[in-house]
């Protein structure tokens, strides 16, 4: 008898939970941000900090959930199939426009609605402080005379910084030897130990060692010089017309209503301006770079084309 009552109670509670909520009252429950990578990475840190301050703006909890695997494919596929009511979001980062060219994924950037871009990280090459190449000119000179001899580590084959390194090769007209590592950490370790000549990376990787004088930034691929290192020129200033970085923003599944997107955009924008978050970002050396949905969408489209060409080239090699 008791057993039946218990089962009945559970069924009743279950029904209550499943009653659909009207869309005008968004958000009606917690908002989930899915991160398609394991906890602890740069994306993870930035968005955990942002989620904490944005909860106030939305009036509901903002929860970060990691769904790693497949270089990001698993997380993106899942959000693509989620209900487009604005309660499930995903961190849209550069690999979103790279992955579809490398493996036959079910998604492309067009399966998502861009909401806002939060961070833009410059990419760079670093070498050891005691390296023989004191400037980019010397580095490129050596590379031209010895094609394929300079080993450049990266955080993963086909990943963001690897492709940036390949694109730089083309722009500078040199040939380098790219060594993949399982993440930014191992690639920096290999550089510190002198096992590779240079590394292609993105802040905060290696920044602590540059500040401590053990590593040097030999090539900086951003538009402007970094505030933390005003003496380091960008490659544009040194004759190579090349800029490339990685963006990190938020997106929702396609079909999310425009007014929900606007609410999310406004809330996260306020979150980005929260002094606590700004301080976190400065501490982590990540470069905040706001972009609204239309602009963010254009950047995604442009990068999708750019990486399509790049990945084709790697596949030919």
């Amino acid at each position, binding site marked *: 008898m008791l057993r039946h009552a218990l089962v009945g109670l559970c069924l009743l509670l279950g029904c209550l939970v499943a009653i659909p909520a009207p869309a005008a009252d968004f958000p009606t429950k917690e908002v989930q941000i899915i991160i398609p990578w394991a906890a602890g990475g740069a994306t993870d840190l930035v968005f955990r*900090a942002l989620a904490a301050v944005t909860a106030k703006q939305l009036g509901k909890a903002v929860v970060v959930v990691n769904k790693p695997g*497949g270089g990001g494919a698993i997380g993106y596929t899942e959000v693509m199939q989620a209900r487009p009511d604005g309660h499930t979001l995903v961190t849209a980062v550069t690999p979103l426009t790279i992955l579809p060219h490398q493996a036959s994924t079910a998604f492309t950037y067009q399966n998502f609605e861009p909401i806002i871009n939060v961070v833009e990280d410059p990419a760079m090459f670093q070498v050891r402080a005691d390296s023989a190449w004191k400037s980019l000119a010397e580095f490129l000179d050596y590379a031209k005379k010895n094609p394929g001899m300079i080993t450049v580590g990266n955080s993963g084959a086909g990943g963001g910084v690897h492709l940036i390194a390949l694109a730089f090769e083309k722009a500078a007209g040199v040939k380098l*030897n*790219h060594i993949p*590592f399982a993440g930014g950490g191992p690639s920096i370790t*290999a550089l510190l130990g002198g096992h*590779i000549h240079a590394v292609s990376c993105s802040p905060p990787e290696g920044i*602590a*060692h540059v*500040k401590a004088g053990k590593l040097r930034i030999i090539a900086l691929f951003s538009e402007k010089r970094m505030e933390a290192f005003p003496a380091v020129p960008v490659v544009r200033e040194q004759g190579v017309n090349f800029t490339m970085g990685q963006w990190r923003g938020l997106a929702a599944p396609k079909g999310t209503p425009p007014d929900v997107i606007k609410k999310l955009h406004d809330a996260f924008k306020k979150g980005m301006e929260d002094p606590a978050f700004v301080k976190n970002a400065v501490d982590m050396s990540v470069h905040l770079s706001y972009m609204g949905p239309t602009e963010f969408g254009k950047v995604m489209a442009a990068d999708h084309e750019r990486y399509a060409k790049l990945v084709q080239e790697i596949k030919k090699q």
Partner: protein
Amino acid sequence: MLESLQYLLTGFGVATTPENLFYCLMGAIVGTLVGILPGLGPIAGIALLIPATFNLNATSAIIMLAGIYYGAMYGGSTTSILINVPGETASVMTCIDGYQMARKGRAGPALAICAIGSFVAGTIAIFGLVFLAPPLADAALAFGPPEFFSLMVFGFVVLSNVTGGSLLKALMMAIVGLIIGTIGIDPVSGDPRFTFASTALLGGIEFVAVAIGLFGIAEVLKNVEQPIEQLEQAVLVPRLRELFPSLRDLKDSLWPILRGTGLGFGIGLVPGPAPVIATYASYMVEKRLAAHPEEFGQGAIQGVAGPESANNAACQSAFIPLFVLGIPFAPPTAILLGAFLIHGVTPGPGLIGEHPELFWGVIASMYVGNFILLLLNLPFVPLFANILRVPKKVLLPLVILFCFTGMYTVNNAVFDIWTMLAFGALGWLMRHWAYEAAPLLLALVLGPKLEVAFRQSLMISHGDFGIFLSRPVSLAFLLATLLFLAMPLARKLFGVGRARADGGAAA
């Protein structure tokens, strides 16, 4: 050296403020809980609690989060011993002898020795951290891809048949592990391998799913073979005085604990899943050095004391690359790095100089934390040991529930649960035909890393195999591997080495 001691004292001043003691306690409790629940490991625990630390100062935050990491190493052995489900990836070896001890009614001594061994190992390892950190970090940097490859070849060869038994079967299981490890994305070219166009397989097969499946689920399936009445009778209910380790137990465990500490501390410096490998190495060493090696696998306390100490020592030494180089070598320390960054502290060469109160405060809190964990875990030993009194018909479904929930918390993926069940079925079959799970898991862990190191080395050397022989450390490991392989042969040919109780070299 004296200077370090002085700094350490100021660190204790920081660590013993009521606030920091509270956070240390919180970290220890959360860590233990996270370690006990199978699947949920320190990675998830630390990541989940990072937001809770946003309003704390950096020192208190790191004290708490670090506590979760080494706390998990204490708690991980609990389910390994009681229900043969590894609570933590580093507790897999503890299942082997720990569970057998529990079946003989000796769960209490097993749990207690785990706590004691973990405490001793953690404390000694912290001393190592304090006095040897900078030179060890430099030594760790000297390991490049060729050195890793050779080290892993050595580890693979030495540890493949760690549990004894048929070498052929162990090698077969190792190869299965290697094959499973190739599923996913090729680490060098980025192409998918063996994924059969499935997005879920793109991420590869999750190690935790295989571990929980092969040990926990398979054990439940094995239990279910017998009629329930027979099962209930088989449980040996321990008496009160049998709940604590005897003097003999303590004496037997002393050297395994010390050796486990040394091994764990050294191996913890190698990037990757060092605590897991350290436990394998410790088990191997204890088995080789034991007076009665045939007891291993049947409930030898050395097989519990050694690995449990090793994983705690490895966990402490994993902090060295994090603090000194600012580079995380093990996944939980990667999360900790993130926590540092969020609080505006960049670990690395400048850490000790710029934030001495943080560094020494955290180190001192590790001593405090280890002590708190000992006090937390020991009194619970009788409680946990009595969990075995729960009738199997209630306990076994609870075990399954534990496995399911724990597994899901790792990646929030239902696919992992299917994987766990599939390997549970496989594990049951394996038991029937006496195939060991340990070599499979070892190969799953080492295989991908071995492959990456091999290919990276060849890329750096432009295809020249000589790179493995021209670098001294790499050459040393390869020679050690050859020596190890040649030993049984040498014994047969020259009759060298002591005669074993089992009559002949275990080749």
